[in-house]
């Protein structure tokens, strides 16, 4: 609700040294926490228990199906070569599933390149990395080729998987959210990290967790 969240926004404007903190505690004993969106220096927090979400986020906040400790819904999507890839393919090893807004945009490029540059560390932890956006296979192919991305990119063209998993949107629903899930080798979610405007942080946070799994 705009009237509920405005005071929070104003407050953060006055705190120039406020640095966004990780919205998720990496302690596995915390059962679940709804994802919070972070806009550099501004925190738009969504919590179903305390505030009435705006209409654009009702679908995602209240009905977020994937939470820490649960097994997310299965999917089969086309990769950058047009081949079908199912989530079940990755069972038996940890997998980092990262949802991002779009190929060839500054934030997503930074994020993809950061995953690429740390890919060896992910492999060392035995994990796979999968990126998902609404772009089609040919867009993913060009994007992966241009930046030499060694991991799989999947096309969620109707944003069905994004909706099924409950990835929240940003900026009052205008922007697809940037949210990363770390699944353990049993397919259970161990971390959900959301940060739209600091994409490289997704790599640090997921690696931190993977190294503890």
């Amino acid at each position: 609700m705009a009237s509920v969240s405005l005071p929070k926004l104003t407050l953060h404007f006055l705190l120039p040294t406020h640095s966004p903190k990780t919205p998720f505690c990496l302690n596995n004993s915390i059962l679940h926490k709804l994802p919070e969106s972070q806009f550099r220096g501004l925190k738009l927090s969504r919590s179903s228990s305390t505030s009435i979400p705006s209409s654009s986020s009702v679908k995602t906040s209240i009905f977020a199906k994937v939470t820490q400790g649960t097994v997310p819904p299965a999917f089969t999507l086309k990769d950058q070569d047009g081949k079908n890839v199912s989530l079940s393919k990755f069972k038996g090893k940890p997998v980092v599933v990262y949802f991002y807004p779009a190929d060839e945009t500054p934030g997503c490029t930074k994020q993809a390149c950061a995953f690429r540059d740390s890919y060896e560390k992910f492999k060392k932890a035995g994990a796979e990395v999968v990126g998902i956006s609404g772009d089609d296979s040919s867009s993913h192919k060009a994007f992966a080729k241009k930046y030499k991305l060694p991991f799989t990119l999947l096309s969620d063209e109707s944003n069905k998987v994004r909706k099924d998993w409950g990835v929240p949107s940003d900026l009052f629903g205008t922007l697809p959210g940037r949210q990363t899930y770390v699944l353990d080798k049993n397919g259970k979610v161990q971390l959900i990290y959301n940060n739209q405007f600091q994409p490289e942080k997704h790599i640090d946070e997921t690696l931190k967790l993977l190294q503890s799994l």
Partner: protein
Amino acid sequence: MGAAESHIWLEPILAGLVGYVLADLGSGVYHWGIDNYGSAETPVFGPQIEAFQGHHKWPWTITRRQFANNLHALARTVTFFVLPIDLACHDSVLLGFVGVCSGCIMFSQQFHAWAHGTKSKLPPIVVALQDAGILVSRPQHAAHHRQPYNNNYCIVSGVWNEFLDTQNVFGALEMILLFKLGVRPRSWDEPNSDWTEETETSSQVALP
């Protein structure tokens, strides 16, 4: 002046200050829009878009424009909007706001030109105002003319630049426009030769 009388001046002056601050923000948003979207063929804005791109290619030429040249186009637009307000409104606070805001907008191209000047050639008062942060400074605006050409868009005082850039406000707006209208800003892609600054000093340039 008694306390009651000085109060009459305070509100319009404060309104003027608000106008000065908002003019800087307005200059940034407008500049960002023109730098990133549209082309020479865009209706209404086409010639300006072309002029801005020409400016990026030959930034130093702006220092060779005459004072009147820097003012006349903006003055036309300001007259169009402000004259009716001046005739219709008599509220001193509103007029204070409109007067200073539109005045700063009218002078913004001249402030911009001064930001391209060299210290030794600028009037000392201009240098002093730039150093005090009242007018956009030369180093701050120079950053706008360097890769990746996506920051320091404000050209009145530049007071909004740090906030807009550190909070990535334009980046967020660019993403919204991509998803809502399908348009990509020019600053996302490698500048082509039409955009990159020409560094040969011998190039013949016709001043716009």
